[in-house]
């Protein structure tokens, strides 16, 4: 491999990882934009999503190390699995909001945020107790097709991650910009009081934000499984923390910022591991975060929020 090939390969590695972080970061940003709440339950909605995807693939008869699918069968299985996983994760997110967060909506202080940490641990321990501590082999219906670009290798699973992430992010952008409920979301994010006076049903907006964010996290969890061929009950914390960092780096509450932040964190992780050492990846990521926040406290694309009081 020439050094150009290696750089290209690291860009492939980093953007694939980053696309996954970006999907997860969008969920933090959607909820924060509307409720100014950091939802730590999101970490483990992602993890539950990967297990839902695993169950769905097994239900469809895809076995670990079984024969790969092609053509319509492959597309059908993937579509069905993504749809079920995203729906289940979205409903889980809405359920968390209804049961654990809605009663605290008017409580001042960090109570709601602490509750999300509690919910995160509940999900984590439920999966641990129900499914066991060992890592699970993730069935993959993807044929092992790969393309050589010089010495670098681009595999089907990377293309899948990019295509799915771009499609979901594009869909989300369209939804937020052009649909009625999307407009209501933006209005609520700007000024909930004024939005309510203009007839926006804030409660519905909140449900939509939790559903969308959690569905994206579920899709992220499924892609994690398809990409690494593994899942386990611990995957939520490291990925969740990096995605949260991505959301802050891009400007929390800002949708394009979350995407940019995710891709940047993925690239920093890949090149940090390559140039320095894998053990320093977190040090590099968080140092860059601190630097960015010192010079741009609202993140790369964020604006300092107007005083709402």
């Amino acid at each position, binding site marked *: *491999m020439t*050094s150009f*090939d*290696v750089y290209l*390969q*690291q860009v492939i*590695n*980093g953007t694939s*990882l980053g696309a996954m972080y970006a999907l997860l970061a969008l969920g933090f940003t959607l909820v924060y934009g509307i409720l100014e709440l950091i939802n730590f339950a999101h970490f483990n909605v992602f993890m539950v999503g990967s297990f839902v995807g695993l169950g769905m693939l097994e239900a469809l008869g895809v076995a*670990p*190390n079984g024969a790969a699918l092609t053509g319509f069968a492959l597309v059908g299985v993937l579509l069905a699995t993504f749809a079920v996983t995203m729906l289940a994760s979205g409903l889980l997110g809405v359920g968390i909001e209804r049961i654990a967060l809605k009663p605290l909506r008017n409580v001042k202080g960090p109570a709601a945020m602490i509750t999300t940490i509690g919910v995160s641990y509940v999900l*984590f*321990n439920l999966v*641990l107790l129900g499914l*066991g*501590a*060992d*890592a*699970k*082999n993730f069935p993959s219906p993807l044929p092992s097709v790969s393309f050589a670009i010089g010495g670098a*290798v681009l*595999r089907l699973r990377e293309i899948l991650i990019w295509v799915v992430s771009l499609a979901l992010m594009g869909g989300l952008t369209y939804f937020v910009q052009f649909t009625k409920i999307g407009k209501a979301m933006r209005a609520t994010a700007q000024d909930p009081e004024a939005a309510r006076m203009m007839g926006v049903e804030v409660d519905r907006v909140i449900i939509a934000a939790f559903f969308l964010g959690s569905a994206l996290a579920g899709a992220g969890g499924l892609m*994690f499984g398809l990409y*690494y*061929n*593994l899942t*386990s*009950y*611990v*995957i939520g*914390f*490291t*990925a969740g923390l990096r995605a949260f960092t991505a959301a802050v780096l891009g400007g929390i509450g800002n949708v394009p910022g979350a995407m940019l932040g995710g891709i940047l964190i993925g690239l920093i*992780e*890949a*090149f*940090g*591991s*390559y140039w320095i*050492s*894998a*053990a320093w*990846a*977190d040090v590099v990521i968080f140092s860059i975060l601190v630097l960015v926040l010192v010079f741009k406290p609202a993140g790369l694309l964020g604006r300092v929020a107007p005083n709402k009081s």
Partner: protein
Amino acid sequence: MLTRRSKLMAASALAVAAGLALSHPASAADQVIKIGIDASLTGGDANEAELVKNGAMLAIDEANAAKTVKGVKFEGYVLDDGTATAGQYDPAQAAVNARKFVADKAVMGEVGPQMSGAAKAMIPIASWANLAMITESATNPAMTDPANAAQYRPNGKPVFFRTVATDAYQGPYLANYYADVLKVKTLYVLDDTGAYGEGIAKAFEEQAQKKGIKLLGHDKLDPKAADYTAVFTKIKEMNPDALFYGGVLQAGVKVVKQAYDILPHTIIKGGGDGIIGAEMFTAAGYPAAEGWYGTQASPHVTEDKAASEFIAKYKAKYNKAPDDYTITAYDGTLVIIDAVKRVKESGKPITREAVRDAVATANVKTLQGMVAFDDNGDIKDKVISIFQAHENKAAAIDDVDGQFKYVGVAPQS
């Protein structure tokens, strides 16, 4: 005259009394001696933990049934040093467990812990109480190194013994095998930043370099991170003959998968005893696991005839096949029972100090042969066995002994 109802009550009272008598066959005068058993029952090493815990329990049950020590009834006191948050052993939990063992006056010895990182937290606490610990699988050399006496023997005498060899032998002997048998010339080393992983990786790479293998690089992996592709891309660029991974399976399954995805399939891959576990096959699976070398810091006796009786008993009782570290756990428990027996027979009161001294001078016939310790608590006879993963469709996918084929004893120099 008994009414029907009181007859029934009398009968059930009798039955309860009979049941009580059955569950306590030892007479009330027997002294209860507890043997602490510490294992990582929660997290990535849970399967292995269950095996070794049952190995120790079987030795205790047999000693009670055979009345090996007259006037003494043994009890296993099992504690878990794994936590959900750590996802594997947690040194802080191990320290809590050590304090629990020490606080219970009936505990006269401990079997375990499995993991070196846990042992490092437990030994200083056990030392102040003179509580003898015998590990079945904690192989990091630091704990028995006399240079670390201030840390691990604050009370003077060693309290930590092993029925396995250490990474000071496990890593280097496998390095000998890489150099002499596999003819490796260039090498890349990874570890999982745990006490065990770092120790074995360092010992491996030092001996490999002495043997003339060129070290191209060494990376440390965060066991909780999911993505090592950047590191493997770097390794692919350097194109070494062989890879060595020092660590346990939490990072190990991801190393096995991603090494297979990214590196050429001709590269030689190996690890220590940390990768010998069911997850190698249930989570990483074939074809990724194919060809990986692994070691055990004990003689491979599960295929010996002498051990076959033990294996049959174990399978009948726990419905699972024991592995080599189940046997070293069983052996360690035999050593503690033997020490208690010698103290008891000498007529002295059974104290932790007396048991520790008896363990230090042990010469006990066990499944792996005679077990005796040197002045630092290490086993005298140090044997490293080498295995290679090879798909075996006749065996179950989680049958570690079936999937890891025994290759032989590693060269000692």
